[in-house]
């Protein structure tokens, strides 16, 4: 499995400086999700997730933050498929099983992008493609 590493800056807060290493069969320059995919994931997130996790992913009274340290402390070294699995089998809490696979892939793309994973041009069409994408906390 090829490894690619991208260092990037997120936002203006130094605490949110992230570098992301992704193990993937896809090229470093193109990233692993399409911009359209992440954008669609954002709209799904706002409709289905934002009320609890916060529209900017900073968490809520009953739900964890999904970016920065809070995200990486759970998902570092996990595959994108693991994040997909968690979402599709438990979310939203008042309607698990109601999200379709395509929307969940796009949600993963949005959350990954919010945590520094670069966008590419090729959309991920199948959940199996997520098996080879590894999320890695910045060094």
């Amino acid at each position, binding site marked *: 499995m090829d490894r690619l590493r991208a260092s990037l800056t997120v936002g203006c807060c130094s605490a949110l400086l992230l570098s992301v290493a992704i193990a993937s069969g896809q090229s470093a320059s193109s990233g692993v999700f399409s911009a359209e995919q992440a954008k669609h994931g954002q709209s799904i997130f706002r409709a289905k997730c934002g*009320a609890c996790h916060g529209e900017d992913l900073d*968490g*809520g009274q009953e739900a*964890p933050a999904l970016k920065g340290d809070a995200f990486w402390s759970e998902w570092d070294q996990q595959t994108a498929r693991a994040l997909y699995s968690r979402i599709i*089998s*438990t979310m939203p809490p*008042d*309607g*698990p*099983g109601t999200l379709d696979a395509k929307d969940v892939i796009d949600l993963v793309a949005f959350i990954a992008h919010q945590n520094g994973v670069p966008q590419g041009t090729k959309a991920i069409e199948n959940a199996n493609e997520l098996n080879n994408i590894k999320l890695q906390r910045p060094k």
Partner: protein
Amino acid sequence: MQSVRSSVGLSLGLTIGIIAAIAQQPAKIVEWRTYGSDKAFTRYSPLDQINRDNVKNLRVVWTRPAVDPLIKDQFPDLSPSNYFRGTPIMLNGVLYAPNGVGLMEAFDGATGKTKWVQQPVEPTLKEAAGQSTRGVAYWQKGNQERLVSVRGEYMYSLDLKTGFPDKNFGDNGRVFLRRPTPDEAPYFGWPGPFIVNDVIVIGGNGGGKASGGYGDGGMDPKAKPEDIRGFDIYTGKLLWTFHILPTPEEPGRDTWGKGSAEYVGNMAAWASLTADEQLGYVYVPLTAPTASHYGGHRPGKNLYSNSIVCLNVKDGKLVWYYQLIHHDLWEYDAATPPVLADLNVDGKKIKAVIASNKTGFLYVFDRTNGQPVWPIEERPVPKSTVPGEEAYPTQPFPTKPPPYDRQGFSESDLIDFTPELHKQALEIASHYAMGPLYTPPMVRSDEPDGKRGTLVLPGGWGSGNWNTSAFDPETNMYYAVSMTQGGSYGIVRNPDAENPMLYGLLDRPRNQQGQQNGAQAAPPRQVSPLNIDGLPIWKPPYGRVTAYDMNKGTIVWMAANGDGPRNHPLLKGLNLPPLGNTGRPAPMLTKTLLFVGDSSDAVMGQAGIAGPAKLRAFDKATGKVIAELDLPVGTTGGPMTYMTNGKEYIVVPVGGKGYGAGWIAFALP
């Protein structure tokens, strides 16, 4: 209350392909029949094999993942949440509990090994997906036995021996719980079902999703009332509905001014119900109405929000009620199980019910008629300054017992570990208004020297919640587990000119909390954080246990639960005592001990423990910590205990990052 069986022989169980035969149970058995131990929700067991002399010797004897591996193999994408709520019940040596996705599992109490697992109605991931609930309900009459669970929008009746659905119940073993509202507001809830005699009583939520979210914040006043319903145990047929927002024909409708009763909602029973089966009464704790921080569109008391209601379980008729908060503006839900207690007050025996809510008060009533055991006074409270708001002029104040946590916010509540820290806390607090309990939210000022809101203690996360209560029926001691967590309410004008809710919170109070336990503070979007480098500006303990003598209505002891931020860099060299961990750990009582764990941060997102945690054993008479048992991550549900084969076990659900979720069982070597 506890069922003690000796030398109970069990017939061999049937299987669904996952199963093992149920072993004989030759030795003494002490059960745990509801997830709160009993229908009084005492969380108490008379067991004393594990006691103050040997509790330090407890060892982990088995663990079990939140979802049985056989189900996980069937659905590889099944990945349960770390917020694993299920406290098992134990019957005849077998534990029954909702798993990490809400399917029922039965497993051996001595080994943790699987007996059966409920199958989803269709072999698809869509049907297997789910969330855990707090527990399952058990029913027995003669030789008939059932397990009743709630999963998603369905209530299931299952055979105790096999996990197969009871085909005579509802539609092939399940009942669709969606309420018959015009827009079919979906149902969901964590508490699970509660069975009283032959009636299944369902609280839970479901009024909000169809109208924009089930929370209490925001600016959308539209929701559906989350009514209480009774169902027949044999058929699943709906028997009755208690309208928690009175219909036009029922008394109390006039407590909702400006026609708000037409469109407001929520007010669900989030916590477990309790029941006196001899009286045939069920006790229901109700929560805040929609968008609780502004009520200009709903002038009046707003019945039955924030009330404890007593219903006759035969017909769902109201026996009595007591509203604990009028016209809630603080989200002070009655989210604690109303514990039943037979008290002896001034020589008089009283069948009591002990209610609580997020304020930290205990409200004690004669459960037969709703009369307060000690006077509850209606006292004047501050007026609102928000345009259009008519804060209720009085609120109920129990004269006894004293509250179990801080109430109201004044300078004396600000930390003073060092003069410099006190100065910094004062500076942060100076940007807010302070006042006693029930000081209303205020309009946030954007001026440089303006006030950003009202500081409140407790905040919207409460002090008390579903986890708070335990009661010892032998000593009549009540134990309140609480969190000291302030907040601020600075509300803003609703940009929607057509909305009857003129003001509201742009965000929930979630981002206005202080942080401790070393957690990094999330910068709030509307106000400055109420902490100094993660150290709350209000005084500790941040997580505590308060023990009451309920015959006298007095506090016997109070102890911090865990170290909290005592090792925070800003407190270096101060040699402070334990400051208490935040979160929502649930207690469990035995003959001599009180067990309270650390709460996992999976429970609340921004409170609780991340990583390794403790299950703490207190001497229940003194509050002294006798032992701290290691847990890989914090607790996510209540502990329970039982005896099988003559051996006492303690089982607790845990969950957290880096570990996942599951049950952990302790016993003596």
